[in-house]
């Protein structure tokens, strides 16, 4: 059984006087212990809302969450706030994009760490202090004793993110959710943090969900990838499989449109996906990517697109597309007429 099972998760935002917005729509995925799972998407794809829903961190007013989230056999979706708080910080921990706003600016780094350790791990104050020092050392912070007595603003961005990670792993969580943890950081610092996360997952055997817009980050870190577009997962596969044969036109277009640093003979113009994420279709009417898709046919607008399985039962590679890239002839002969 998987560590985390997300089944048919949906999140709808309702605001008075406005059409409800379905930000996440029928999302299902698994995370096994020791596994890193990437959720990739652009702004508005619903990737961050998915992670907040898994953590139970969405506000209750104006938000409807459907589906189930099961962690280690415990169903989180119908747990009360109190039990959920216990789980957060102990079994599941989250790392956010901006470490400055996630750390309390008026409390020393040490106290923030100690607080987590005494509350969730049940350590005494003395034990917690010693453990906090160990944790900072473990996440690669030099001179941890001094850093414990300092405030978050006295640290650089990279150091702050390390402190956040130290807080997140303080109680040896089973699942780590990292929401764009390196987006605010410079490349060399990003490399340090990704390296640290890789090591932590390998050493502790926890599962990790990596929310990112950067396919490069996914390529270097994740075992499985789910690509989200407009609230739904449009393609899922093992990382190598996905990069070897991106099959949803969106994934494919995205990969082709990214300039690569190791491209020794860059083409004059980049491949582009036309339009923007605003050009969309409601999923129940058709494929949300249809207005931007070069492979679109009339059928793409006749109801929600079915999922095509391109993998095997053991190594699945589902694609939510009627005409996956590289599959035209075998699957949908005759659909090509527009």
């Amino acid at each position: 059984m998987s560590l985390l099972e997300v089944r048919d998760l949906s999140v709808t935002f309702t605001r008075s006087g406005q059409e409800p917005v379905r930000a996440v729509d029928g999302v299902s995925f698994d995370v096994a212990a020791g596994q890193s799972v990437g959720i990739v998407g652009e702004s508005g794809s619903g990737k961050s809302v998915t992670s907040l829903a898994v953590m139970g961190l969405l506000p209750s007013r104006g938000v409807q969450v459907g589906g189930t989230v099961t962690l280690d056999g415990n169903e989180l979706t119908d747990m009360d706030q109190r039990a959920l708080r216990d789980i957060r910080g102990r079994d599941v921990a989250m790392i956010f994009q901006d470490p400055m706003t996630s750390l309390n600016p008026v409390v020393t780094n040490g106290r923030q760490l100690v607080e987590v350790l005494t509350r969730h791990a049940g350590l005494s104050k003395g034990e917690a202090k010693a453990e906090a020092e160990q944790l900072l050392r473990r996440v690669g912070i030099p001179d941890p004793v001094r850093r414990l007595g300092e405030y978050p603003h006295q640290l650089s961005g990279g150091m702050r993110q390390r402190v956040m990670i130290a807080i997140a792993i303080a109680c040896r969580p089973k699942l780590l959710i990292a929401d764009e943890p390196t987006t605010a950081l410079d490349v060399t610092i990003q490399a340090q943090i990704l390296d640290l996360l890789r090591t932590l997952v390998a050493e502790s055997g926890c599962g990790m969900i990596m929310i990112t817009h950067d396919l490069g980050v996914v390529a270097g870190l994740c075992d499985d990838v789910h690509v989200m577009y407009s609230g739904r997962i449009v393609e899922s596969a093992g990382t190598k499989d996905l990069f070897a044969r991106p099959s949803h036109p969106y994934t494919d277009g995205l990969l082709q449109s990214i300039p690569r640093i190791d491209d020794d003979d860059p083409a004059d113009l980049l491949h582009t996906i036309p339009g923007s994420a605003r050009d969309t279709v409601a999923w129940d009417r058709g494929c949300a990517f249809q207005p931007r898709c070069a492979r679109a046919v009339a059928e793409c607008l006749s109801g929600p697109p079915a999922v095509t399985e391109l993998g095997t039962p053991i190594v699945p590679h589902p694609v939510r597309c009627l005409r996956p890239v590289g599959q035209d002839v075998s699957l949908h002969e005759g659909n090509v007429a527009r």
Partner: protein
Amino acid sequence: MSVNEVVAGEPGGPAPAPTEAAARPPSSLGREALRRLVRTPMAVVGMALIAVFVLVAIFAPLIAPYSPTDNSWLDQVRPGQYPGPSAEHWLGIDPLGRDVFSRIIYGARQSLLIGVVALALGAVAGIALGVLAGAFGGWVDTVVMRFVDIMLSVPGLLFAIAVAAMLGQSLTSVMIAIAVVNVPIFARLLRGEMLGQRGADYVLAARSLGISRSAIVFRHVLPNSFTPVIVQGTLTLALAIVEAAGLAFLGLSGSDPSAPEWGRMLTDAQETLTSAPMLAIYPGLAIVLAALGFTLVGESLREALDPKFRR
């Protein structure tokens, strides 16, 4: 483009894809703010109160049944006994034999006059100082802001009392006193906002286009800094009405004791508070309602004009 679905944006939430730009009628920013304003119940109540207040002030001679200074009913008044509401005198008669309702109606004129003039004087001077400091920066800013700091360091009402006392008892001095108190508030507000806007990229863009400094200040920085000033203006109007009443209560308003004015009516009612408390409540209520109207509109404006709520 016909298949494009308009998805409402969720601030801080997922789909930041509010509207397809090419499929929407053009709208000016002001009109949009107004549309949001009329959809806020708080603003509607505030605007209704202000409308009543202004209409009453303008049409006071038509609404008031009697002249505010007409004391023909002095014979009905006995010490400690003042006729209450009746069909002829809706709010009764005051100790000097005048119709209270008429005085309240005419009082609206005074209050509105004081509020508007004090606001206009204070705002103009404050805005001028704020623009000076905000546009030039450097030593000009330092000098202006030190001056403003000194003004701010004196408590508002105390300052107004001092100014009014210095200028002598008159309506003009009350208006000037209230204006002076508001000068530093406007100056500081505008200057701070302008300094913030000056660092914005679009100002840098304008500079890189070779737009002159004065054009940048007046066409870009100032319009974008003005929202809080407008909001402050409505709140100041509310405050000015209360302050004018306060100064009148302290006996610092006009030298003509028969002038109908809410603050003075409150002062006069003090002497008969035990026997006729209603005489204090009517003008008090009038002050509160008028001030409330401007406050409600001001607060709603703050939200309506906030770009964070704009979509």
